[in-house]
């Protein structure tokens, strides 16, 4: 058997000379023996190989187009076996590579290993460094998420300021005048083809020249010379394993690389920042106002980048070498200081209290605080958005062929708050009733219960607060809580309902009716009747879950009877709802809103379209504008889709993924 292998080996060697090659590559003399300080070059090779391997596997799952890039990365991250690990290793190894490069570079300069005859190899190393940075830059965009999109678009916009050829360079880089499919195909070709190809070519030259000149031994004394194999290889392997361990540790700790919401050219990401190792450049730019920017973006960084290329010649003398070391320290120190400054500015609001800043009464500090607050808010908001999109993409509906962005645009939970803020929040509030309101209306005990319930719980709905509302708080429209509130003498006159500023309804008929009818001690029979009315109206809104509706069928029917006249017999005021409102076949339109289908999707849509219509407030309408009175959507303030999104959001009617639980429980 051994003989067979031996002769096979001979046959192969005879034709290829492979044994000599292996021998040459393994038996390289190491003057002074194997040392830990020689491992950095090898760890970089290992890091690159890792990127090559993980990159090829990512390539097998990635699809570069604006409808598929984010979507395919989502699939890698959340659906493929260990996909998050694969992507995480690629992501963190890229960062490790930048660190290792810095160490390698630092060591070479420190040791003066760039001196003759190694000048050219030093320059090859610098070129390799630029290629690695190029890989980092192009890779950041590929997931086509908000973070990568906005950070890269800032980068390419800066590139367009290059004197003379700037705009053309930008057009070629992004494949048009705007970001799109061609940006992705081009960046991907650079990232997975051109740059790694170039890197390999230069790496071969780099290693060939390294072999030619031999290792630059720091102190070829003390110990005996040894060979690359096996002593140095062992040390290199241990170092490579250590690097991998760190990368794996980071990957697992952060649960892989982040994927923010899909890139949306119309939705700015206020926390757009480059990857941490480019932060110093980002910060550096802030020093150059207006037209001087080109200095900050190109000329100075270009000059600084040019310095290392002449280091071998500066460093020919001992003084020159010291100058090089000083330059390098200044460069790294400057970059570190700028990075720290950038981080400090961004997290300023998290590390300082608002009161202290306000007390200081310094406009510069206040502005810094505000900017930082915006950054942090944008981060939180982006995180929330990403979570929701991923939740939707994972739901049985999956991502539509038009891509994840269109899915986001169709989601009431994501769009509702934005539309509400733009169109409704100048008058309305959207705010959960707090413990105080509860205590006031339902007693201390309920208030306390409410407070405990709310404590430490994330808000289910995003609140939008208007400090001086001029219209009701729309939180939970159509829910039992809303109906109870409207019928409660203690609540109807609060700003949550008809007690808002300058409300014509504060002393209106409805308010009067509620105060006259439901004030004071109510008998058990009256309380029961009120509950049935609430349930009947809740059922009208179509927000009642089907099984609740089934089990409460009788109560709902009785409630309907009460609304249509039954209440008059039970309460002293002698009135019921249909004396003013229309409800199904009873009552007339004209004096108060129709209660048929109260707060159902159709009802609410029609209401927002034209609250002054006969079916709703008519001439009694307060200041609410008609958002969609015309049949031609072009003439309306809000298009049909936006109206639908607002109404669905108000009603809490959106795709629920995890929990079938009701958002609004019955009032206590």
């Amino acid at each position: 058997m051994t003989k067979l292998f031996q002769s096979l080996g001979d046959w192969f060697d005879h034709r290829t000379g492979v044994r000599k090659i292996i021998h040459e590559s393994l038996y390289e003399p190491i003057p002074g023996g194997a040392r830990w300080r020689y491992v950095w070059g090898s760890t970089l090779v290992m890091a690159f190989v890792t990127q090559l391997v993980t990159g090829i596997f990512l390539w097998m799952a990635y699809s570069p187009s604006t409808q598929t890039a984010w979507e395919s990365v989502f699939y890698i991250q959340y659906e493929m076996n260990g996909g998050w690990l694969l992507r995480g290793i690629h992501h963190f190894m890229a960062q490790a590579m930048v660190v290792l490069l810095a160490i390698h570079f630092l060591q070479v300069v420190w040791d003066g290993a760039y001196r003759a005859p190694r000048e050219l190899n030093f320059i090859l190393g610098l070129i390799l460094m630029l290629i690695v940075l190029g890989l980092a830059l192009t890779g950041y965009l590929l997931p086509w998420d908000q973070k990568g999109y906005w950070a890269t678009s800032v980068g390419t916009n800066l590139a367009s300021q290059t004197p003379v050829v700037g705009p053309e360079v930008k057009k070629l880089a992004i494949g048009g005048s705007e970001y799109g499919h061609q940006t992705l195909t081009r960046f991907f070709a650079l990232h997975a083809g051109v740059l790694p190809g170039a890197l390999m070519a230069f790496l071969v030259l780099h290693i060939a020249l390294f072999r030619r000149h031999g290792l630059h031994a720091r102190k070829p004394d003390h110990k005996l010379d040894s060979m690359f194999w096996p002593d140095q290889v062992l040390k290199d392997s241990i170092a490579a394993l250590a690097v991998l361990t760190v990368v794996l540790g980071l990957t697992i700790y952060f649960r892989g690389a982040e994927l923010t919401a899909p890139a949306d050219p119309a939705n700015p990401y206020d926390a757009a920042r480059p990857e941490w190792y480019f932060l110093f450049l980002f910060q550096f730019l802030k020093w150059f106002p207006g037209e001087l920017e080109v200095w900050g973006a190109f000329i100075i960084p270009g000059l600084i980048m040019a310095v290392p290329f002449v280091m071998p010649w500066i460093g020919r003398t001992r003084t020159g070498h010291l100058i090089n070391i000083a330059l390098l320290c200044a460069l790294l120190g400057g970059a570190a200081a700028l990075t720290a400054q950038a981080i400090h500015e961004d997290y300023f609001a998290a590390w300082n209290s608002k009161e202290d800043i306000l007390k200081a009464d310094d406009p510069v500090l206040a502005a810094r605080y505000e900017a930082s607050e915006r950054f942090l808010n944008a981060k939180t908001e982006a995180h929330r958005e990403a979570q929701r999109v991923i939740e939707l993409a994972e739901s049985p509906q999956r991502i539509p062929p038009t891509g994840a962005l269109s899915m986001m645009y169709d989601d009431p939970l994501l769009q509702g708050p934005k539309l509400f803020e733009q169109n409704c929040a100048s008058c309305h509030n959207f705010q959960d009733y707090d413990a105080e309101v509860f205590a006031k209306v339902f007693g201390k005990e309920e208030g306390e219960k409410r407070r405990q319930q709310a404590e430490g719980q994330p808000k289910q709905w995003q609140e939008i607060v208007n400090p001086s509302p001029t219209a009701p708080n729309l939180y939970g429209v159509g829910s039992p809580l809303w109906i109870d509130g409207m019928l409660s003498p203690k609540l109807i006159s609060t700003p949550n309902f008809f007690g808002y500023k300058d409300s014509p309804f504060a002393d209106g008929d409805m308010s009067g009716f509620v105060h006259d009818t439901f004030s004071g001690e109510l008998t058990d029979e009256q309380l029961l009747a009120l509950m049935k009315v609430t349930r009947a109206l809740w059922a009208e809104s179509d927000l009642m879950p089907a099984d609740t509706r089934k089990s409460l069928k009788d109560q709902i029917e009785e409630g309907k009877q009460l609304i249509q006249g039954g209440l008059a017999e039970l309460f002293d005021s002698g009135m019921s709802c249909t004396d003013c409102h229309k409800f199904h076949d009873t009552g007339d339109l004209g004096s108060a809103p129709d209660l048929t289908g109260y707060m159902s999707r159709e009802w609410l849509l029609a209401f927002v379209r034209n609250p002054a219509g006969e079916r709703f407030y008519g001439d009694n309408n307060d200041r609410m504008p008609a958002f969609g009175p015309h049949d031609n959507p072009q003439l309306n303030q809000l298009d049909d889709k936006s109206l639908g999104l607002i109404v669905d959001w108000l009603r809490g009617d959106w795709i629920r993924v995890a929990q079938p639980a009701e958002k609004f429980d019955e009032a206590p």
Partner: protein
Amino acid sequence: MTAAVVTGSIAVLTPVGVGIAAFLTPLFRKSKSPEVRIALLDQVPDDGMPRYFPVVADREDAWTRYPAQRVGAVYLIRLAGEEKPTAFTAKCPHAGCFIGYTPGAKVFQCPCHTSAFNLNGSRVNGDAEVAPRGMDTLPVSIRQAKTGDGTEIAEVWVEFIDFQTGHKEKIPTA
């Protein structure tokens, strides 16, 4: 020898040339700035406060045509007594981030490199601002549309031009 070099070069460089020609396609494509209906004039009261509107237009990206996409955003401001609002594109003239505005604030602010602009679009710190020029205005026109019952209703239309960032002058990208 010359013949060998020439023949060889032609053989190698022809495919390179063809590739480069295809690669340069974006330089030869011209896009037109769309005219977009932004809002009803009623939505921009003449109180001098900026109002944010998304710009919705058809957009083409290589082989895909997106009907009615948000392609950007504008701020409309109408000063007291003015008939036509001024339109500012939300794209920062510095590096193309989206300029933000908090209702009630006295300045626009860019989140990226903290440029600030007055409500008339000029730079708060003049030439000391990182942005090389004030916010870009867009051409505005008022058009009359007819409602179902024949009454006229005024609409604000804007020519949505994209400008190069980072220069003192406004240079359209297309």
